[in-house]
């Protein structure tokens, strides 16, 4: 982990790009935390303006709608209520009050959240509570409702349940960090008694990372795909030399190590991470264990892209990335071989390549400790996207057999369905605004609560588009937010499309559909704008293609009355 001192150096760097405004409120000394946070944000290439409230001003700041916390217009408010301060409050209570202490505190926290929701557009990052016991009742405290440890643990539990009901809130798991580092490392008594600092210098970078991991998600910088080497990464031994019977998986040799790793990867898959294989092997030999080894946890159906050949791994990862249509920076590549790791780092610097420990029994703990797969949402049963990405692979294969693109597109038998944003799709819509980088006109990120606000407002028209073809269902592939300006004009605030359906006629279909609706509502002009990022250059010409006139630098408008319906092979779902 990067040290606090290094983070202070990063803090001084100048970085291009706009600031993200963050307010930090704590009931203990937060200066070092803010320094670490600034440093870690810059370490991850993010500029931030951080407003740090005075010591122990949480309630005062949040109650006053004109406070500095709100007037600094924060995108994120970090709330750090320390367990040390909590204890000071706890001991002033009667035994009776202590028994409901956690409930009383959670009510207070919830009222803080409501104030923030009322007075700002900020997302909340609530740090949970480090657990410790005052040991005035020994271990008996564990079954004593009025004990501190009982109430702190309950409070953390309540934070989870309340957090799960509130889209504005993200929990920063500093308790998890304390568990990993140990209380002795996390908390430095001399530091605390000297100046009410509750997180040691050693622990600060971890806490800063935990916060920044969430900030990165809000900026759409998430990992979507895990690419795995095979020999000595997913199993022990070399399949080509040792044969399937002798690779270590399950009970053989150090096989349990690899079984655990595979179990973890399977869990990732179920949470929505795409799993790909990249191995220097003959394809048939490499696939054999996936098909026939009784102890393998991962099977071929879990793998979206299986690449085994003798090309270099950078070329293969590039191929996987292009076939799956995802960003290089959304890929994590694991390989036991330092040569391969360095080659990929050298050729594809955007790919995240963990420096795996030498001993395979340490792989899993190391990978977990890096927290590569932070997320802001989870779709439950719908999270697993393997089938979708596998279908994408089949389409690519078939594409090669057609003479013309039109023939191919017709053969796909594509059918689209249009909906407004609604309670069921709001979370997925928000996720798309957070994750889409390439086909994205303005790259405005919305949270689920933003989307809910938009869909319930009369000032917006919303569209989400689903697509399916003979290979399968793509799910939601495009979304559009139109903001009303006046009775005749409106503004294309957001248009996002999944790159998987690019150049299949979906652009045309979406535009036809929006124009149709806007005309029905009596609009005459659709305005829009292109905001360039370093990833969305693919949409810079979309306006011209769709019939918009350029009326200023990156400003466009479409006269709706003279719009000519664009050709497309996609049919409307018959309802």
């Amino acid at each position, binding site marked *: 982990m990067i040290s606090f*001192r290094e983070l202070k150096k990063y803090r001084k760097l100048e970085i291009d790009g706009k600031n993200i405004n963050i307010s930090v409120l704590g009931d203990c000394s937060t*200066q070092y935390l803010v320094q670490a946070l600034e440093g870690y944000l810059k370490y991850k290439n993010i500029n931030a303006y951080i407003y740090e409230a005075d010591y122990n001003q949480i309630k005062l700041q949040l109650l006053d709608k004109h406070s500095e916390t709100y007037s600094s217009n924060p995108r994120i408010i970090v709330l750090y209520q320390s367990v040390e301060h909590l204890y000071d409050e706890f001991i002033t209570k009667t035994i009776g009050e202590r028994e409901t202490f956690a409930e009383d505190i959670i009510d207070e926290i919830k009222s803080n959240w409501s104030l923030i929701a009322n007075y700002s557009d900020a997302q909340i990052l609530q740090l949970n509570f480090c657990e410790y016991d005052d040991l005035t009742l020994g271990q008996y405290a564990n079954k004593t409702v009025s004990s501190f440890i009982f109430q702190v643990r309950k409070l953390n539990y309540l934070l989870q349940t309340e957090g799960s009901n509130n889209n504005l809130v993200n929990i920063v798991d500093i308790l998890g960090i304390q568990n990993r580092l140990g209380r002795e490392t996390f908390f*430095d008594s*001399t*530091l605390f008694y*000297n100046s009410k600092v509750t997180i*040691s210098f050693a622990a600060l970078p971890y806490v800063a990372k935990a916060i920044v991991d969430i900030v990165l998600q809000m900026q759409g910088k998430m990992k979507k795909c895990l690419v795995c080497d095979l020999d000595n990464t997913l199993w022990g031994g070399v399949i080509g030399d040792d044969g399937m019977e002798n690779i270590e998986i399950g009970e053989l040799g150090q096989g349990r190590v690899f079984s655990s790793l595979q179990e973890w990867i399977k869990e990732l898959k179920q949470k929505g991470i795409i799993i790909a294989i990249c191995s220097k092997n003959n394809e048939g030999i490499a696939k054999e264990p996936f098909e026939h080894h009784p102890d393998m946890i991962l099977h071929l159906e879990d793998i979206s892209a299986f690449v085994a050949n003798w090309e270099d791994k950078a070329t293969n990862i590039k191929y996987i990335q292009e076939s799956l249509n995802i960003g290089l920076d959304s890929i994590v590549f694991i390989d036991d071989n330092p040569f391969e790791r360095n080659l990929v780092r050298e050729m594809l610097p955007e790919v995240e390549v963990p420096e795996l420990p030498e001993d395979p029994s340490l792989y899993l703990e190391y990978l977990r400790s890096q927290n590569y797969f932070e997320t802001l949402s989870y779709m439950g049963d719908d999270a697993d996207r393997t089938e979708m990405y596998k279908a994408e692979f089949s389409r690519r294969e078939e594409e090669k057999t057609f003479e013309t693109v039109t023939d191919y597109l017709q053969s796909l038998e594509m059918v689209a369905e249009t909906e407004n944003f609604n309670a069921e799709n709001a979370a997925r819509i928000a996720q798309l605004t957070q994750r889409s980088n390439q086909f994205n006109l303005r790259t405005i990120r919305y949270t689920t609560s933003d989307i809910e606000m938009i869909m319930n407002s009369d000032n917006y028209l919303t569209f989400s588009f689903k697509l399916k073809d003979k290979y399968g269902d793509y799910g939601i592939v495009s979304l559009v937010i139109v903001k009303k300006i006046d009775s005749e004009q409106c503004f294309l605030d957001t248009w996002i499309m999944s790159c998987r359906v690019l150049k299949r006629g979906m652009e045309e279909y979406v535009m036809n559909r929006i124009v149709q609706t806007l005309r029905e509502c009596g609009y005459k002009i659709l305005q829009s704008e292109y905001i360039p990022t370093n990833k969305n250059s693919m949409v810079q010409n979309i306006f011209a293609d769709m019939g918009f006139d350029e009326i200023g630098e990156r400003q466009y408008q479409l006269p709706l009355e003279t719009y000519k319906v664009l050709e497309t092979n996609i049919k409307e779902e018959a309802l």
Partner: protein
Amino acid sequence: MNMNKKEVIIFLEELCKDIFDDEEYTYSESAIRDEVDGWDSLTHLELISEIQNEYSIKFSLDEIQHITTMGELVELILSK
């Protein structure tokens, strides 16, 4: 621990440059806390933390609070 005063001072000078964010910083035995540019209550604790890590020693709260000059800090390190 067998530590040479000169080495400690050299280490401290480099460390202070970094932590006080002052490339010009030079060690002076009699320099007083809060009168040295960059040596405030915040950087003081950082300084202590780095020294503790470097020499694998631990200062007591009382010691940390009563250091008023660089000379005293050096003596304290040498006494550990």
